[in-house]
């Protein structure tokens, strides 16, 4: 089984205060720590587990600057075999669709049975890449995947998609395909020191837009359908109804609202 897994390096904003930077189009990342996008960590694990069961190779791909090597190497340390990093000024400012174009161009040159991505990215949360990648590669895709079972013939897979309320929708999908992996599908391993040392010796192939046969106008901001205009902090209070009064009154009001909306 030839497996490809796409990983993104994102800032960890879970426990930090986030501020919009001077450009108004990004957050100030100077004090944030970075790591692999959470879903992608599960995608890496899923790919490696399938390789360990059925044999084959895992190729790790990431679009971004040299700093991304850190997350690529961690995936190699866990059991990835090869790595490609897409780096070019032309890729800057791209939306999910433009990123998917670059990834698709890199993946087209490979033999693959399954391409794994995370279901969505922790930073922009567009959840576009897996679907766009499927379309661009001309193969079926499934998103929010929380279970993968390769069927006997190795030509199809049974996948469980997570729906609202924890329901799983099962469907059969033909390989090759793209799967957007949801967190919780497995228990991601920790890279061992031995793995880390081996990964440090591996080469990461760097590819530019030209290497991928892409014209700069097709990718990055100019190749995007969506253009980011500006960030604004959420307006406090506008969407919220603040209940006033003493605790007994507010509790009664709250109970009435919950009943009215059919929530209790």
């Amino acid at each position, binding site marked *: 089984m030839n497996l490809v897994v796409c990983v993104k390096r994102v800032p960890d904003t879970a426990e930090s205060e986030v501020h919009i930077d001077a450009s108004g189009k990004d957050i100030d990342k100077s004090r944030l720590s970075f*790591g692999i996008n959470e879903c992608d960590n599960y995608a890496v694990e899923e790919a490696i587990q399938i390789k360990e069961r059925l044999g084959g190779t895992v190729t790790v791909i990431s679009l971004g600057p040299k700093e991304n090597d*850190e997350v690529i*190497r*961690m995936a190699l*340390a866990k059991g990835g075999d090869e790595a490609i990093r897409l780096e070019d000024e032309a890729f800057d400012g791209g939306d999910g669709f433009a990123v998917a174009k670059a990834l698709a161009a890199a993946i087209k040159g490979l033999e693959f049975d399954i391409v794994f991505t995370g279901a969505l990215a922790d930073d922009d949360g567009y959840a576009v890449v897996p679907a766009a990648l499927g379309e661009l590669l001309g193969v079926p895709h499934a998103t929010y995947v929380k279970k993968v079972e390769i069927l006997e013939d190795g030509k199809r897979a049974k996948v469980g998609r997570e729906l609202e309320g924890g329901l799983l929708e099962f469907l059969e999908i033909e390989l090759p395909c793209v799967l957007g992996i949801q967190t919780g599908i497995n228990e991601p*391993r*920790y*890279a*061992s*020191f*031995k*793995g*880390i*040392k081996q990964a*440090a010796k591996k080469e990461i192939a760097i590819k530019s837009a030209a290497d991928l046969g892409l014209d700069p106008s097709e990718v990055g901001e100019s190749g995007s359908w969506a253009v980011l205009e500006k960030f604004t902090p959420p307006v406090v209070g506008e969407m919220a109804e603040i209940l006033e009064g003493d605790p007994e009154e507010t509790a009664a009001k709250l109970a009435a609202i919950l009943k009215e909306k059919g929530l209790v």
Partner: protein
Amino acid sequence: MISFELSEEQRAVQKVAHEFAEREIRPLAAEYDEREEYPEWFVEKAFRAGLTYTYVPEEYGGQGMDFLTACIVNEELSWGCCGFATILGANNLGVTPLLVAGNEEQKRKYLLDLTSRPSLAAMALTEPEAGSDAGAVRTTAVRDGDFYVLNGTKCFISNGGIADLHTVYASTDPSKGTRGLSCFLVPKGTPGLSAGKKERKMGVRASVTSEVILSDCRVPAEDLLGAEGQGFKIAMITLDKARVNVASGSVGIARAALEAALDYARQRIQFGRPIIENQAIQFMLADMDMDVEAGRLLYMKAAWLETKGLPFTREAAMAKTFCSDMAMRVTTDVVQVFGGYGYMRDYPVEKYMRDAKINQIWDGTNQIQRLVMARSLMAR
């Protein structure tokens, strides 16, 4: 000539250890502390994550980290919880005599087995009458044909009684004091080896500290480490490493405490503004930051000397003493920053203070470390 930069590999394994501490240890640290319970599952998790027997060479199945890298890992684990980190620290301590003095056959036999599965090791030196004064060890080892017969009681042994291998110090010649000490490999299940009282402790409560009783315990002569009379030397070389490890763990605790204080001081409003806006608080935090930084440099220097094969007894004693005294200072101040809340068990900081304390005591008290430093100074 001087570089303070960690290698890419060191940074990667530091990150792994940090994530492991954050995900697997921190969420449960308070619970195991409160219940004073040994987390049975933990060593298996650590084994799967590649965090056991960190500096045992790869050829013996260990992780093959250089000593500095192993200390960096220990700092992160102790940042998670010093009690949990102690379980793995005692493992390293338990097998270090084997690394120091074991012959090829002993190393292959015991290390390959221990490193191939989730296992525990322990080093048993201390006795009720022999704490700082190792020469007062009363456990005896009497040669009987192809065996030694061990009799005595060890106390305060980390992983004691539950370990798969105990390295035990006993006197083969009580008339010679420290020069009569010898070190033996005593695997689990050896008749005559048993666990005594499990201690109830102030801190590091996830780690088992127990009496180990040797009662006509017959150990094959081939399980003597080195030669008769080399026990004290083996213990001292082992403890040099243990002391640097203690230093790194102390830095981990102090750092965790400082982070908690910084967060709290930003959030806590008194007199209409966050308490961090008072210079009195800022200066406490600044001193803590300086202390943690200095402590880290000291343990890293000592560990670096070890990796270069240079003498590091003096630096190990300095790092152990400075870092543990520092962690005690920092954690005490952190409780102060938290005010009354810091004194409550609902917040993590009183635990940091309790955990910090042990580091001034074990692996040679800080008074004994000052003796070591003074001796090295006077030998100039």
